[in-house]
């Protein structure tokens, strides 16, 4: 893989709330290459959206970026201020937000919002901006884009609004697009269309995507690489096919086990026991230990990043050995059930 276009290093984002400091993003590290799609997976509250906002420098008080680097083509975005970061946002790196109902201003026409987005970076006439907006709407498969331009957001369905948001992200052909669960509000056939469109864009234009989702089925069909987050930390990374075929972190294994497609209809789905911890008072050591079937005595200390073949990593004291590895490591004798 060539030099990655986006490289996030040890990113840390904190919110100062009444209960204390919430470390919503706690040392997140990953990278995405040109034309690659990274699936960012994790339960609700694991810090996926905050990671996206942090990359674009959109964190507002009481939050702040407490450390780390966000290198976009080698430039650290966390160091940019005011006008410098404004020139990057939307032009070199764009983001599609999670909730399509809230991302467009209800009292402004689609055309007004899109023309403003075009003219934020390109000094073109309103007419030119409008025709570029229309083309972008056509790209994401919106029928009769000219009429849609004159609509207000409430006149569009949720799926349409989400496509408008994606079209806005595409306007300046950015190097990286962070898409925060952009297809969760869409029905399956439209979701399929959009995913195919995204794959084509990545392959043809070299746009890199960070595709945030908790739908592993989407990840397996779309992403090249996977990054699994739990409680603000990256717990596992690797090529999507490898991670799905043989997860190394017990949390990833739990997530995969609960994907419906892997089971017979009617069969009860296994679930990861327990629920996501509150970020304000995490247990010391591994945050997943209380729910983990492999938890052992070492788990109340901070787990190390373990490196495996093909550049895979897992943040775990007792990673799962792939089936092919016959001899269990010495630590396996201490495996025990958490219950």
């Amino acid at each position, binding site marked *: 893989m060539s030099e990655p276009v986006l490289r996030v290093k040890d990113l840390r984002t904190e919110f100062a709330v009444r209960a204390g400091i919430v470390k919503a993003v706690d040392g997140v590290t990953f990278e995405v290459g040109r034309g690659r799609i990274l699936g960012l997976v994790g339960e609700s509250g694991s810090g996926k959206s905050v990671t996206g906002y942090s990359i674009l420098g*959109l964190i507002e008080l009481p939050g702040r970026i407490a450390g780390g680097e966000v290198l976009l083509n080698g430039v650290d975005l966390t160091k940019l201020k005011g006008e410098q970061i404004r*020139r990057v946002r939307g032009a070199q790196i*764009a983001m599609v*937000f999670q909730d399509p109902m809230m991302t467009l201003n209800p009292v402004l026409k689609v055309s007004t919002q899109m023309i403003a987005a075009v003219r934020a970076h390109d000094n073109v006439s309103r007419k030119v901006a409008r025709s570029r907006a229309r083309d972008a709407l056509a790209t994401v498969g919106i029928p009769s884009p000219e009429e849609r331009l004159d609509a*207000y957001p409430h006149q569009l369905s949720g799926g349409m609004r989400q496509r408008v948001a994606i079209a806005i992200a595409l306007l300046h052909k950015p190097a990286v697009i962070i898409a925060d669960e952009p297809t969760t509000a869409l029905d399956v056939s439209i979701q399929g269309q959009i995913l195919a469109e995204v794959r084509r864009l990545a392959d043809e234009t070299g746009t890199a995507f960070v595709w945030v989702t908790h739908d592993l089925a989407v990840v397996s069909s779309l992403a090249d690489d996977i990054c699994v987050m739990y409680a603000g930390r990256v717990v596992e990374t690797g090529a999507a096919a490898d991670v799905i075929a043989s997860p190394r972190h017990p949390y990833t294994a739990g997530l995969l086990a609960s994907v419906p497609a892997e089971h017979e209809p009617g069969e009860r789905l296994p679930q990861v026991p327990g629920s996501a911890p509150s970020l304000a008072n995490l247990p010391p050591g591994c945050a997943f230990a209380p729910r983990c079937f492999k938890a052992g005595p070492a788990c109340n200390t901070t787990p190390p990043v373990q490196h495996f073949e093909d550049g895979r990593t897992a943040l775990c004291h007792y990673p799962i050995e792939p089936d092919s590895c016959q001899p269990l490591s010495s630590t396996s004798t201490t495996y025990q059930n958490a219950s």
Partner: protein
Amino acid sequence: MIGFFIQRILQALLVIIAMSVIVFVGVYAIGNPIDVMIDPASDQALREALIQRYGFDRPLIEQYFIFMGNMLRGDLGESFIYRLPVIGLIFSRMPATLELAVSAMLIATLLGIPLGLWAGYKPDAISSKFIMGLSVLGFSVPTFWVGLLLIMAFAVELGWLPSGGRGPVTDFLGMKLSIGSMEGLSYIILPAFNLALFKLGLLIRLTRSGTVEVMSSDYVRFARAQGLSERKVVGLHVLKNISIPIVTVFGLELGSTLAFAVVTETVFNWPGMGKLIIDSITVLDRPVMVAYLILVVFLFVLINLVVDLIYGQLDPRIRVRAAS
């Protein structure tokens, strides 16, 4: 749209009729104007003759219908005191109040919206806290007292501005206005500012809370993610969104300022409608009181209608609801 219009006008008519009954009965209950109108020493015959002439001997209901009948013909009667048609009397005073109210609204808007925007955009800045403190003063300090302070400071101590009255007027579209000349302007500044204070406080708070809300919305964050400049974010998203509540309050306040500028007009001896109505009440000049109150209701209804129309233009979601 037309249905909405007709409905609104019918509502307005009902309100005006109800209002006229209440006012008429209320004023009738206060007392017999004849006692105020004539010299207590005059003889019984003169008194009887006057009562006959004004129809005070007839039953209330009959007096009411005579009044309403005349009103439909555009005749609101004649002032008992000035012996002039009421309409002419009110309209001769209206330009003074109109220019005072409009100037006050202008001051409140031109100062209030930028200050409120700033206070909402930087809610934690010292300057914002200061602005909010001022707005509380605008709300809570009585108008007449501020008026007196203004006179003390700018007219008596500094001698920069006149202490009261209306000064020279110039003709504009058949209305006599002060704002046409520099000297006239110097007369209107203090009362207009005095009248503006409450509205200023109100507009600052309204603008600020709207700005805070919009700035923390997802669509503003999305606009920033597209690289929109802060100026564009405020100028496009914030202004458009907060204009909706502001237009509503502006309309209501314009109406109440026109109708009830009484205190300021009294303090500054401004010869507007407010002073006219106060004077009429003290002498029980019934036709003036009734006509004035009906005019006020009419103004309110009219302003509200205009506000509703603008509202529909500003908020596309309302338009849909009105159409369905």
